[in-house]
């Protein structure tokens, strides 16, 4: 086994570019999944089954099929339908959509964990439905779900390399490009492997700290 530090130092500028794209995709994907997930949860609570049933089937389908194939689908099929987006936006949309089907379950668990007394109190105070949700239920539910959502952000981080297959140059994409140009696979791939371990370890420490503050 031979290790070439020059290759590492040559790779580093590409690494930072890739890291930036990865973090961008992660931030936007997280925001999208948090929002969409909440939308799914609220739709699943509507009284008519004509809304609940399709939403349930679609989200179950998205959750049980590979993100990779969903990426291919969005990347190749949407242009056929006349919708063209940049590769990064397609990737962000795919990750956001995929993980929204997970966050919806987190939100649901959070909403169900709000004590029934809170609902009854809101009814007793004659709060309108909208106020009940925005002022009573959601603030309490969201507090409870932050740690679980954070876990999914870490999972999302580890799924961002898949964006490479739709030509997004995130960390793994940069590493592959560099390896193919220089025929040096060991260094760039190891660098990004270590980077992933470090980032997700730091993120999980951060999350644990946040959890201690939020959930008492």
């Amino acid at each position, binding site marked *: *086994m031979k290790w070439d530090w020059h290759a590492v130092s040559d790779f580093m500028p590409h690494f930072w570019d890739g890291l930036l794209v990865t973090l961008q995709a992660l931030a936007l994907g997280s925001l999208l999944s948090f929002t969409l997930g909440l939308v799914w949860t609220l739709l699943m609570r509507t009284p008519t089954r004509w809304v609940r049933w399709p939403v349930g089937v679609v989200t179950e*389908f998205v959750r*049980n*099929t*590979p*993100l*990779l*194939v*969903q990426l*291919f*689908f969005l990347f*190749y*099929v949407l242009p*056929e*339908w006349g919708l063209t987006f940049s590769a990064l936006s397609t990737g962000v949309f795919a990750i956001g959509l995929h993980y929204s089907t*997970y966050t919806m*379950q*987190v939100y*649901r*668990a959070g909403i*169900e964990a709000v004590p029934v007394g809170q609902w009854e109190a809101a009814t007793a105070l004659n709060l309108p439905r909208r106020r009940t949700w925005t002022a009573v239920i959601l603030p309490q539910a969201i507090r409870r779900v932050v*740690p*679980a959502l*954070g*876990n*999914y952000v*870490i*999972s*999302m*981080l*580890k*799924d*961002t*390399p*898949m964006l*490479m*297959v739709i030509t997004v140059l995130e960390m*793994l994409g940069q*590493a*592959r490009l560099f*390896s193919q140009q220089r025929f040096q*696979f*060991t260094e760039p*791939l*190891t660098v*990004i*492997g270590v980077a*992933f*371990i*470090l980032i*997700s*370890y730091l993120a*999980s420490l951060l*999350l*644990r700290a946040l*959890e201690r503050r939020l959930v008492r």
Partner: protein
Amino acid sequence: MTSGLWELVLKGVWTTVQLLVFSALLAAAVSFVIGLARTHHRWIVRFVAGVYTEIFRGTSALVMIFWVFFVLPVAFGWQLVPMWAGTLALGLTYGAYGSEIVRGALNSVDPAQKEGGIALSFTPAQRMRLIVLPQAVPEMIPSFSNLLIELLKGTALVSVMGMGDLTFSANLVRLALQQSAEIYTYVLLIYFVIAFVLTRLMRGLEKRLKAGIGREAGTEPAARELKRARTTGVGGGVA
């Protein structure tokens, strides 16, 4: 789609299923070894197992696959057949997630049960085999079921390395037909059907195992979903 292309897809299904079975077996073995090691009484064993979990859970499955395919041959001179390289990468990664499930289930067994074993002067191995595991394993099944679905989704990653699995065959068909909507829809449906069958099988297994220790399987889907939100595979179980 012509029948020749369908044949290609079927071959892809077969490769995916093979890879799924092998990597699930490896992941199960790793989960139990590492999970048991994490409840070991010596701190050094616990520490090493913990480091393993952090490393393999910390990195991305796709990066791990790249590493096994490109770095292992160059750095250590181990050139693996694609099927085994895929199995190794997926099994080790998902095994790290599984070890958390095993550890959690082992810790959730009532301590009084172990004390009972000590009082009856069982050896540690007997306690594990006859008392702890029969109660812990049924508790693991719902989480393992979710992890298995995550693993199924993970097998698609090997297509990036040019292994002829279901996703790869879809890409070939796309190139052959120059249109993608139809084939990707079919492939997504096939994955969904496999996932559905796996979920049913695991539910049956849970029922049988729980009947063995006189407990009722959690038929309530809501309870299952809740559990999934807490312990879902890829990266879900950091807490």
